[in-house]
């Protein structure tokens, strides 16, 4: 997660307007998820991998590793769709009959499973593209522009910031515990862990009070107002993205059964 976050700030596409990147990821994902064929997800997967690796300069190894993360989960759910058990051996495409029970794959199920698999993977690649190229703060700005309620965007700003503050605090406490022989046995691990959590909880309250004071000192009145750096809008990018989406939609329509 930390690596994804670091790449979001250091990739080659960071100067591109966050709205363009979000539009690209979201429009492509929508087309991919609604696709009735396997061709569209494959194209989406290829495009997203290509853009992320070659355009944004994210190492291919890292991108592949990320794609492997949902794979195990995805395979499990897809396999349950593909395989069926029945007392009737009719209609199976690939099957084994044991004691009158037939375990196997029906051909239509296989198609559904593989489509679902690719569609999910394609959608995941779109999200990875966005996560790897666009810092969270800018995604929040885009959400704000899209009129997402302020309470949500403000909470996102604070939560995102404080994930890192608390992670650092937790790491520091953990290091201090390790250097005093915490976590040496099962029993001490549990004890150390519970101490870490209670210490962290205390800090959460202190930090939030301090943060409120510091914000009040800067004339906070209940709404977090802030400016975001402006990025040049490139109409050509919007055209390209729309054209791509249209092509994919045409493929979707042609592949309809």
């Amino acid at each position, binding site marked *: 997660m930390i690596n994804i976050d670091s790449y979001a700030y250091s990739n080659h596409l960071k100067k591109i307007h966050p709205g363009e990147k979000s539009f690209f990821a979201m429009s492509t994902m929508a087309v991919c998820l609604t696709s009735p064929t396997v061709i569209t997800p494959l194209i989406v997967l290829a495009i997203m991998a290509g853009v992320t690796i070659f355009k944004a300069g994210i190492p291919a190894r890292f991108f592949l590793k990320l794609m492997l993360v949902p794979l195990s989960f995805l395979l499990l759910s897809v396999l349950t769709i593909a395989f069926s058990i029945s007392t009737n051996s009719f209609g199976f495409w690939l099957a084994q009959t044991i004691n009158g029970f037939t375990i196997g794959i029906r051909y239509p199920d296989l198609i559904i499973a593989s489509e679902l698999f690719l569609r999910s993977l394609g959608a995941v690649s779109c999200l990875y593209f966005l996560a790897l190229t666009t810092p969270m703060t800018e995604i929040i700005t885009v959400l704000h522009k899209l009129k997402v309620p302020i309470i949500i965007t403000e909470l996102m700003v604070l939560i995102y*910031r404080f994930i890192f503050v608390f992670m650092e605090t937790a790491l520091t406490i953990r290091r201090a515990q390790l250097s005093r022989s915490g976590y040496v046995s099962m029993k001490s691990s549990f004890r150390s862990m519970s101490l870490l959590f209670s210490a962290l909880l205390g800090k959460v309250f202190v930090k939030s009070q301090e943060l409120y004071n510091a914000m009040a000192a800067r004339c*906070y009145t209940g709404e977090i107002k802030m400016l975001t750096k402006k990025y040049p809008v490139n109409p050509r990018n919007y055209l390209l993205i729309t054209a791509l989406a249209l092509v994919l939609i045409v493929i979707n329509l042609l592949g309809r059964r």
Partner: protein
Amino acid sequence: MPDVILEAVHLDYSYPDGTKALRDINLKIKRGEKLTILGSNGAGKSTLFMQFNGLYRPNSGTIKYRGQDISYKNKALIELRKKVGIVFQDPDSQLFSSSVYQDISFGPLNLGLSEQEVEVRVEQALIDTETTDLEDKPTHLLSYGQKKRVSIAGVLAMEPEVIIFDEPTAGLDPRHAREFMQLLKNLSDEGKTIIISTHDVDLAYSWSDRLIIMSSGEIIAQGKPGELFLQPDLIKRADLALPSLLEMYCGLVEKGWLPPSTPLPKTRAELLLSLPQ
């Protein structure tokens, strides 16, 4: 015109748990002054600072801004906080956004300025604190010193009349500490009133016009740095030490290298100049 801009009158404050944090604080801060508050940990410096812009309300006594008792009504507090800015000690509790640019723009936007004006101020604050190259970085990837400079920028961009720095040089490397002192000098030259708290006796001695020494919630001494540091029992009582420059000066006088009539040196260069050739 040396008029009083901030004033504490018979200020008493206890924390909700009953700990007495401030006892009968009387303090006048003149406009354009360079004031240092010295005191050991827990002496009440930070608590006093939070009284100055109305974050804490005294149990008894008052804070006066330009001769008027400050009001604790929301609107009045906001007006006060436009004029009196605080840079907190821990940058992690001051920076609320992960974007350096967003965080610095927060204060000036709250002043109701136009976006263009805010942009100009943010740019200027970035330049003044040498953080221009950090504006695209997320706060959590910055070092402690960098965060500190960003949190300073966030207050500078509001252009307050009085700027309070709580332990500003703690955690800064020598180079950035020096540059910070230069920044303070520039702010002073612009006519800002500056209050800092520190443990750094060298900084307190060479930078300030006036010193306040606090100990367990009380002001135990105030006056010119040269006068206060030459009272050994006072320095001991406040858990402080002699500035190295004064230590050297006293040593030289004791050994007869300097006549006792030599004026106290403010800087190393002054001390070297006063040595007989």
